């Protein structure tokens, strides 16, 4: 079993490194989109699946990251790396500011508030009060500076940036269950009264998981801007938020494989079957209903266990 797993992981790494040299540009762009949206769905999963916060405005933080990156580069000619860091950090700060006053809200209330905030966000970028966001047209034809003589806007370069970013996120998520923070949010998510009775701080962990999720979404937004060289409001609306929410629910809350598989189903299959576009939503709607009936915990329900086997063997 262990050997099979290593073989699988090694071949996956080889395939993902070799892929851009074999595939054509259309496929490369589809798979890059898939990598970006997987990372985005994972950041939503940290909030929804792992921490159990019913936030449905995640596209907003994706948008904040994307717009920050675009504005910093287009208007202020900031260094690419600094702009990238800034997009994550600004998303993180806004996430923190938003969650702080509403951290005591539960379930459905939180969902309504986050959805409302997303709508406000879209209104702000559409109306462009500060003359930065370009209104409904967004910002396009962004000229990215090269970094140390490397052009980072080529399809292959973006593919690798997205791949590295997703790999880091997968590592983070894989190890989360083994960390003190990951365990705390698991206990709080499953029974917050029992968790509090053993001394686990609810608000601190809720703040942290939400703001970290929004930070990761901000970084993902920057990579998205890098791929398309443009940002416009429709990519960050509530439809996107609902789709992201659905990815986590359909894939399996808190499940790494489930969420990646879910983003494949939601974001890649529609690209492949583009010629049947008019039936797309019909098929997906039906598939989602069927899936929820036969596998109510998602495509690949999460398995949780956090004592490593090595420790279990010790007496």
């Amino acid at each position, binding site marked *: 079993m262990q050997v099979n797993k290593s073989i699988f992981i090694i071949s996956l790494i080889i395939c993902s490194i070799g892929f851009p040299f074999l595939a054509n540009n259309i496929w490369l762009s589809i798979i890059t989109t898939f990598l970006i949206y997987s990372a985005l769905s994972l950041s939503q999963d940290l909030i929804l699946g792992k921490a159990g916060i019913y936030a449905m405005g995640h596209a907003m933080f994706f948008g904040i990251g994307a717009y920050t990156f675009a504005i910093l580069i287009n208007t202020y000619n900031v260094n690419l790396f600094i702009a990238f860091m800034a997009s994550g950090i600004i998303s993180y700060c806004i996430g923190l500011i938003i969650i702080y006053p509403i951290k005591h809200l539960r379930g459905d209330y939180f969902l309504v508030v986050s959805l409302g905030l997303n709508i406000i966000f879209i209104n702000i970028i559409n109306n462009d009060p500060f003359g930065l966001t370009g209104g409904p047209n967004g910002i396009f034809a962004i000229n990215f500076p090269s970094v140390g003589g490397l052009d980072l806007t080529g399809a292959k370069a973006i593919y690798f940036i997205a791949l590295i970013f997703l790999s880091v996120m997968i590592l983070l998520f894989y190890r989360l269950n083994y960390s003190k923070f990951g365990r705390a949010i698991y206990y709080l998510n499953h029974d917050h009264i*029992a968790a509090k009775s053993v001394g686990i701080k609810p608000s601190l962990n809720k703040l942290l998981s939400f703001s970290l999720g929004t930070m990761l979404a901000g970084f993902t937004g920057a990579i998205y801007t890098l791929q398309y060289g443009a940002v416009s409001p429709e990519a960050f609306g509530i439809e996107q938020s609902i789709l992201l929410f659905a990815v986590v629910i359909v894939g399996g809350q808190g499940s790494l494989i489930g969420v990646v598989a879910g983003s494949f189903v939601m974001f890649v299959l529609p690209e492949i079957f583009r010629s049947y576009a008019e039936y797309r939503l019909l098929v997906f709607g039906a598939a989602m209903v069927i899936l929820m009936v036969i596998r109510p915990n998602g495509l690949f329900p999460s398995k949780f266990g956090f004592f490593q086997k090595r420790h279990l063997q010790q007496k």
Partner: protein
Amino acid sequence: MTKLLIQNLSKQFAALVALDNISLELETNKIYGLIGPNGSGKTTLFNCISGVYKPSSGNITFAHHSIINMAPEKIAQLGIRRTFQTIRLSSELTVAENIYAGYHHYSKHNFIQALFNLKGYRQDEIHCWREVHRAAKLLDIEPHLRLKVKTLAYGIQRKVEIARAIISQPQLLVLDEPAAGMNESEKIELTHIIKQIQLQNITILIIEHDMHMISTLCDTVFVLNHGKLIASGSPTEILNNKQVISAYMGDEHA
């Protein structure tokens, strides 16, 4: 030495007075019973001690700290641990992982150490795992450590909850009907286990309906009725107290 001091505690839910001017005192290393008919305010009192409810008036002092406005997690960190009337465990987790929750606050690694499985993390995990074993041994549930909680019998789940509460060596353990749903032999075993826990220098407060268990275990028994403390004393005194008998059986039996 006084461990927990409750002074003039009252709790009101709208028009309902759940606790009415209760004062009691728990001393170190003793077992206390709290009895009373259904709806007399026993669990409300527990919830006030553990911080789930904010009392309407009065004061609770634990080891020289006033805990009246403290959050439940702060009170737990001070050394008061509790179990619940209905079992509150994560059923998808194994017994070991559930017990570990009680020790979570004392685990010492940071996220970077966990991320890369560094030495500090591995040592910490081994230390925690030993603590889990120790708690499980005390409650005699070691063979079940690797099983999921949902596959276990009710009596064992109860013990897992107690193990989670005592793993951090609390100073006060508050048990809400620990023997509910247990059969006679399990009750005898539990009585024995609670005595073992007391030997670890833990003060214990138990809500229980089984009078036999209360009288074998407790040094002092408090009786609540309609939110009032109607009697307190040794189990024999309580069993012969007319007010207590009338509260349970009605006036004609008193």
